[in-house]
């Protein structure tokens, strides 16, 4: 029998003097004895805001870890809507976080704040960005995103949901980011007025051939756009088309989706695991001449679109429950 040697590659400051029995005084349990990388692992789970406003003020040891670029490779500016931190302050904190990454930033999440200037600051700081999430960033524009696209050569995952970004940015991103594998471009959905718009789908199909994962919640694409995506993104594995109510999954296209994709979410599939609000505003009676609750700029764009009602539907009868014209149970 050969006994297993107790040497190991894990951090080694955990000496045998730390086997303390239950009867020891709590004072002797010294959390500062944790190996540095273990403390770093803990602090990483706090998110950037907590690290900067709280954790780094606890003691000099924690502050030292909080200044280590290693823990700033991922910056999660998750903003749970804590009202005591204003967007301006969040921007300052984010810049500080970016500074601490010392050029090693790989992954950043910005929610409910952020400007074009901040985006520029982020992308100027690093050439290694692989994951970028800009969600509910009302002040980030197409212009801003297009301007920095050239600085994201290694980008693999992009989430620009619920913002003011249009197909223009998608195209520029696609052309500048050859490695993009995952795109989330989710919108708040408005059923009324009924608009069909395949521009975003076409932009994706044209410029993102390496896509494996695509989430287009609430998009206005039609079967034409969907077909373009299936053709243009042959490596697509997962596709989320929930609340894309212009899509008709019956027939050959639906079959093709089911065959080509490993993971498909259909327009009427449940939304409980969708991270944003999926409630569809109740638009009252259907009236195409009276746009209700429009906030996405697509409607105001110069792109051609046409009101096109499915032949089998009598427009005024469309209720919020569109299950009648396709039934997921048939698949």
């Amino acid at each position, binding site marked *: 029998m050969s006994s297993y040697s107790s040497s190991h590659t894990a951090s080694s400051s955990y000496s045998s003097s730390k086997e303390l029995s239950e009867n020891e005084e709590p004072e002797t349990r010294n959390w500062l004895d944790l190996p540095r990388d273990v403390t770093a692992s803990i602090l990483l789970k706090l998110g950037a805001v907590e690290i900067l406003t709280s954790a780094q*003020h606890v003691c000099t040891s924690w502050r030292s870890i909080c200044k280590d670029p290693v823990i700033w490779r991922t910056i999660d500016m998750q903003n749970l809507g804590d009202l005591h931190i204003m967007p301006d302050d969040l921007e300052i904190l984010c810049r500080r976080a970016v500074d601490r990454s010392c050029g090693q930033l790989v992954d950043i999440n910005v929610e409910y704040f952020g400007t074009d200037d901040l985006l520029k600051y982020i992308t100027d700081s690093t050439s290694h960005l692989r994951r970028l999430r800009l969600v509910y960033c009302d002040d980030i524009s197409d212009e801003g995103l297009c301007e920095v696209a050239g600085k994201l050569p290694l980008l693999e995952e992009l989430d620009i949901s619920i913002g003011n970004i249009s197909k223009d940015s998608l195209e520029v991103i696609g052309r500048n980011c050859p490695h993009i594998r995952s795109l989330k471009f989710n919108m708040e959905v408005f059923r009324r007025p009924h608009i069909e718009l395949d521009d975003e789908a076409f932009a994706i199909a044209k410029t993102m051939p390496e896509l494996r994962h695509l989430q287009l919640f609430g998009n206005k694409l039609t079967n034409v756009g969907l077909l373009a995506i299936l053709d243009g993104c042959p490596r697509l594995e997962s596709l989320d088309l929930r609340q894309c109510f212009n899509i008709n999954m019956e027939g050959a296209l639906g079959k093709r989706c089911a065959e080509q994709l490993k993971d498909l979410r259909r327009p009427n599939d449940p939304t409980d695991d969708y991270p944003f609000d999926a409630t569809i505003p109740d638009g009252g009676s259907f009236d195409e001449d009276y746009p209700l609750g429009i906030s996405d700029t697509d409607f105001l764009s110069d792109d051609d679109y046409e009101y096109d009602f499915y032949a089998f539907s009598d427009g005024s009868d469309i209720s919020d429950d569109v299950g009648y014209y396709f039934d997921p149970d048939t698949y």
Partner: protein
Amino acid sequence: MSSPVEQITVVSSDGDEFKMTVAAAMQSEQLKQMLTDDSISIVKVPVENISTEILVKVIEYCQKHADHEAATKANGGGASDSEAEELNKWDAEFMKVDVEDKLFHILMAANYLEIKGLFDLACQTVADLIKGKTPKQIRKIFNLKNDFTPEEQERLSRQHNCSFD
């Protein structure tokens, strides 16, 4: 050629011996490497830094997660949402431990034995204790001293315009 090992024995720092199934042991990268190394014939593994009390908890975690993996495989791959949720609930209950005592040691044990799931879980548990707390409150929970000089404290407080206390 030794016969296939189905169980191994781990020995705590207190000298107590515990049997672990191979599946459970494989949850630990450390133990896994040993088990897959044909040049080592294992009978007993001393884990010198881990007390009986903690080792029992660690083995419990490993066995539960090994069982879950086996059940998932048997069902053909994906865990159902309810199974995943059940496991999460179990994990949450499992981690309801004394901060002062067990949490620290479980974290260290998971780190030492390289049990990724348990390590992440323990880190998250600690992080959850820190979230939303002021530095003062955090120090109290973890028995840490404020070793900043008053000048440093002043400077940091001004820098962030945030409550420091």
